[in-house]
C-alpha cells in the first residue's frame, strides 16, 4: 500500500467510525439545501469560520467515499508547526497547508497544492476570513479565494453559511457543548472578469446574505 492510499483508508475509517457518528448523533446538522452540494469535484467550498467544528461539519455532509476527496485548506503555521501535528492533520483530515505570511513566492507557487487538488477533481474547503472569529461576526474576506478562482475559472465556488459551531466549541474555550448546527448553501458562482477584489466582495456578500435571510432572534 502506498502512502496516499494508506492516508485515504485512515481518513475513510476516521470519518466513518468517529466523525460522522459524532457529528450526526452527538451534535446534529440541519442541512436544508443539500441538493446544492456538489456530488463530485472539482469544487471550492467557501464558508464563514468560527470553530474547528466547521470543517468536520462540512466534510460530514458528504458520503464517506467522497470525504476522502475533500480537503480543507489550513494554516501551515497553526496545523503544521510540529511534525506530529502535520502528520495527524494531513492523514486524518487531509488538509492542504497554506502559508499565511506574505512570501516572495509567486501566486502559482503559493496555491500549487490547491490547484493540483482541483486538477485532480477534488473538493477544497476555504475559509476566506483566514482565521476563526470570536463573536460569530463575518470578518473581511482575504483575496486568496479569488486568486484561486481566477486560476481555475471553470471550477464552481459554493458559498455556504454555518451557524452553530461558535456555540459548540468557540475559539476561547476547550470544552464541547452539543448544539445542532445549521448549514445554508448558496448557488455556485464562477469567476467572472471582475477584479479579484470585487470577486472577493461578491462572495462575501453571498455568505452575508445567507446569514441575513436565515437570521433569528439572537438575545432573549
Amino acid at each position: 500500500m502506498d502512502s496516499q492510499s494508506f492516508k485515504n483508508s485512515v481518513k475513510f475509517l476516521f470519518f466513518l467510525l468517529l466523525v460522522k457518528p459524532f457529528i450526526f448523533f452527538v451534535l446534529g446538522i440541519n442541512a436544508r439545501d443539500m441538493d446544492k452540494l456538489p456530488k463530485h469535484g472539482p469544487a471550492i467550498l467557501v464558508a464563514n469560520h468560527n470553530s474547528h467544528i466547521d470543517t468536520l461539519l462540512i466534510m460530514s455532509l458528504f458520503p464517506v467515499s467522497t470525504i476522502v476527496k475533500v480537503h480543507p485548506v489550513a494554516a501551515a503555521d497553526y496545523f503544521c508547526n510540529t511534525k506530529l501535528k502535520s502528520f495527524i492533520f494531513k492523514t486524518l483530515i487531509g488538509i492542504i497547508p497554506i502559508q499565511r505570511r506574505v512570501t516572495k513566492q509567486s501566486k502559482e507557487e503559493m496555491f500549487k497544492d490547491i490547484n493540483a487538488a482541483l486538477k485532480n477533481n477534488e473538493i477544497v474547503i476555504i475559509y476566506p476570513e483566514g482565521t476563526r472569529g470570536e463573536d460569530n461576526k463575518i470578518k473581511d474576506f482575504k483575496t486568496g479565494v479569488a486568486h484561486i478562482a481566477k486560476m481555475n475559472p471553470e471550477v464552481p465556488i459554493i458559498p455556504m453559511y454555518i451557524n452553530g459551531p461558535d456555540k459548540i466549541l468557540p475559539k476561547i474555550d476547550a470544552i464541547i457543548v452539543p448544539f445542532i448546527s445549521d448549514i445554508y448553501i448558496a448557488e455556485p458562482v464562477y469567476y467572472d472578469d471582475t477584479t479579484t477584489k470585487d470577486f472577493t466582495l461578491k462572495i462575501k456578500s453571498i455568505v452575508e446574505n445567507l446569514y441575513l435571510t436565515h437570521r433569528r432572534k439572537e438575545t432573549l
Partner: protein
Amino acid sequence: METIALTSNVKICIAALYAVLGIITIVAYVISFIKKGADNLKTRMKSFWIIVLLFTAAFMFNKLTAIVFIMLVSYLALKEFFSMIPTRRSDRRVLLWAYLSIPIQFYFIYTGWITMFYLFIPLYLFLLIPLRMVMIGDTDGFLKSCGTLHWAVMTCVYAIGYFAVYFSIPAFVNPAGGALGFLLYILILTISNDFMQYVFGKTFGKHKITPTVSPNKTVEGLLGGVFSTAVIATVLAPFLTPFTYLQAFLVGLVIALAGFFGDITMSAIKRDIGVKDTGALLPGHGGILDRLDSMIFTVPLFFHYVAYYYSIGILK
C-alpha cells in the same frame, strides 16, 4: 433483565395501529400520485414509519432498552431546544450540567426511585442551575437565562421522562393492558386528538381561537377534537385501561384540552424566536419537538390521572 409485559389486548392494538398506518400510507401514496406536488405527504409518512418502528423495537424487548430509548429522545429534544433558543456564551457550563441531568434523571426512573424522579428537576436542578450561574458571575440577562434553561429541562427531560416512568406502574393496576396499555392509550389519544382537531378545524373552522399564537386553530376544531377524543377514549378504555366509562370520558376531555395547549405553547415559543420548525430531524414534520409538543403536556398529566385513581404502589 425486566421484560415489558405485553397483554393480548396490547398486541392486538399494536397490530391494529400498523394496519391503520398501512392504510394511511396507501392513501397518501394514491393522493400524491393523483395530485402532483403532494410529495410532502410521502416524506411525512416515511418519517412516521421510522418513528413507529423505532418505538415498537424499543418497547418490545425489556425495560432497559425502552428507558434508554426515551433517554435518547430526551437528549435529542433538549439539544434541539438549546439550539433553537438564544443562549448566552457564558452559560456553556450550565448547559453541560443540564445535559448531565438526563442520565441522572433516567437512572432514577430505571431504579424505580420515583420520589427522586419527582424532585430532581423541579427542585434540585431548580437550585443547581442558578448556583452554577452565579459561580460564573455573568449577571447580564441572569433571570431570563435562568428561567429559560429551567423551562428547557422541565420540558425536554422532566416531561419526556414520564414516557419511561409508566413502566414503574405495577401490572395489577391494569390487568387489561399493563403499563404499556396506559402508554399506548395516551399516545393514541394525543395523536388522534391532533388529527381530529385538524380535521374539524379544516372542515368547520370559522372562529379563530388564538389569532396571535396559532392562526389556524379554531373554536370549531377544538370542540370537535375534544368531543371526538372523549368518545375515542371511552371506546378504547375497556380494551387498554381499568377505567370506567365515566372516568375514560373525563380523561378524554382533559387530554384533548391539554394536547391543544401543549401544541399552541410550542407554537408561541417558535413565534417568539422567529422559526417555523423547532428543527429538521424528521423530514416532513420538522423537529422532534414539533412532534412531541402536545405529548409534553398530555403524557405527564395522564400519568397523574392514573396515579390519582390507583395510588397504590405509584406514589409510595
